[in-house]
């Protein structure tokens, strides 16, 4: 068992989680949980309806915009603070503190500023995603070996060449980890945004399902979200590992 195939661990994990779910269902009963097979089937049914897809599309759009904002702004902030060491030193604790605030409490302010709808959702998603992206990028740029930058200066490389041939290649693995974390948090942010300030989307479906105690719907939407998040995450993680491996 020492050298199991990489896929085997994943399968064992999925099997374990499904078994735990079934056992929990047997204990908790039908009013509290839906069993795995029924949930998959109901999700399949939902995916056959146009209305459900329009909700998925609403969430998808908001998430995509929020993610683009998070990644681009985070990257810019991180690069700036990473390259200018002193301002980074000033900013880092501020970024970390912002990261630790329960951002959900800021939601009323976002809503008052943007109104109910798409912009508020996007803003709320981006609030969650920008900071981790910035922190990871900053750390990545800072930990570039000074020797490399000195060599570049000796060789009289232009700013652009330095960025292209030194900063990006050596910071890429860490930046990619930032993308992975930022992806996850932006998704949570967007969904939370939809739960309170939206008339469309998966978050809204979840919130109405809570109100109606519609356990099947709650479980099906949760399952879809978990499947999506886990699939993307595992893919990103695989790329992440390869980048880190290549770098060392």
């Amino acid at each position, binding site marked *: 068992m020492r050298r*199991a195939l990489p896929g085997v661990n994943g399968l*064992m994990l999925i099997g374990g989680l499904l078994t735990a779910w079934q056992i929990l269902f047997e204990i908790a009963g039908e009013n*509290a949980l839906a069993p795995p097979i029924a949930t998959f089937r109901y999700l399949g049914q939902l995916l056959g309806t146009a209305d459900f897809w329009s909700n998925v599309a609403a969430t998808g759009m908001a998430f995509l915009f929020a993610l683009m904002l998070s990644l681009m702004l985070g990257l810019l902030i991180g690069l700036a603070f990473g390259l200018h060491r002193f301002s980074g030193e000033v900013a880092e604790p501020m970024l970390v*503190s912002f990261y630790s605030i329960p951002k959900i*409490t800021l939601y009323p302010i976002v809503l008052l500023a943007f109104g109910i709808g798409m912009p508020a959702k996007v803003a709320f998603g981006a609030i969650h995603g920008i900071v981790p992206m910035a922190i990871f990028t900053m750390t990545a740029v800072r930990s570039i070996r000074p020797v490399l930058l000195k060599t570049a200066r000796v060789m009289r490389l232009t700013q652009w060449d330095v960025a292209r041939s030194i900063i990006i290649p050596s910071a890429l693995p860490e930046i990619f980890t930032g993308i992975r974390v930022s992806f996850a948090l932006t998704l949570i942010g967007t969904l*939370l945004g939809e739960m309170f300030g939206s008339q469309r989307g998966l978050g809204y479906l979840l919130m109405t399902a809570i109100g109606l105690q519609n356990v099947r719907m*709650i479980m099906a939407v*949760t399952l879809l979200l978990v499947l999506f998040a886990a699939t993307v995450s595992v893919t990103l*993680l695989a790329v992440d590992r390869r980048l880190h491996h290549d770098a060392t």
Partner: protein
Amino acid sequence: MSRATRIRIALTIVAVLLVEALCRFGAIDILTMPPPSIIALDLIRLLASGKMNDAMLKTLWNVVAAFGAAIIAGVVLGVAIHSQRALRRSLEPLFATYYAIPVFAFYPLLIVLFGLGDAPQILIGFMLAVVAVIMNTLAGLDRVSRVLLKTARIHRLGPIETALRVTLPCATPYLLTGVRLAVAYAFIGVIGAEFIMSNTGVGYEISFAYNNFDNATMYPLILLIILISVMLNAALSYWEHALMQKRGYR
């Protein structure tokens, strides 16, 4: 005080003054957000009136419960998983993707399972916090040098004694990172859950005030939560940093 700290404080003051000016000159509508000075005064008034004591106490207890459970379970599970290589390898994908899963999506299920009491909120805080503790415990245990473990074996320490005397003290700086994250996550989880659906607690009071357009209660409470989480985070970071320096890391 270092130069960076002084600049940081100055920047914060400038930012607050800027918002104050924007509010006072009407660039930000008074209905959207009152000026920071008024928020601060409202907060003092709110705290003095004692209206929020019950809600604050309740939130605090839930955070403490979630945090405590996460630390104990996280360290125990971390140590256990660390000793089982096969188990660790099969759990690794779960840890790596865990924070991509919107844990709040499980909150409705927890309400159905446990009712609308404290349990679902504590559980959400616990679920968010525990994995950070496990991951940092694992990272900390990875850094314990072989020599120390061999020394422990030479002195014939049992597994529990080895853990208490060698491994855990060695891993402390990393454990502390886990603790800091656990505090933040327990706060985020409990207050988020209260905000989504509950009938008591600071998160609930904020969403209640929001639904009633009661800015004089909402903004001070938001400020309170921001202040508490920033101060806790700063204190723990400071401690962590000091410990790291003492150990010669960084």
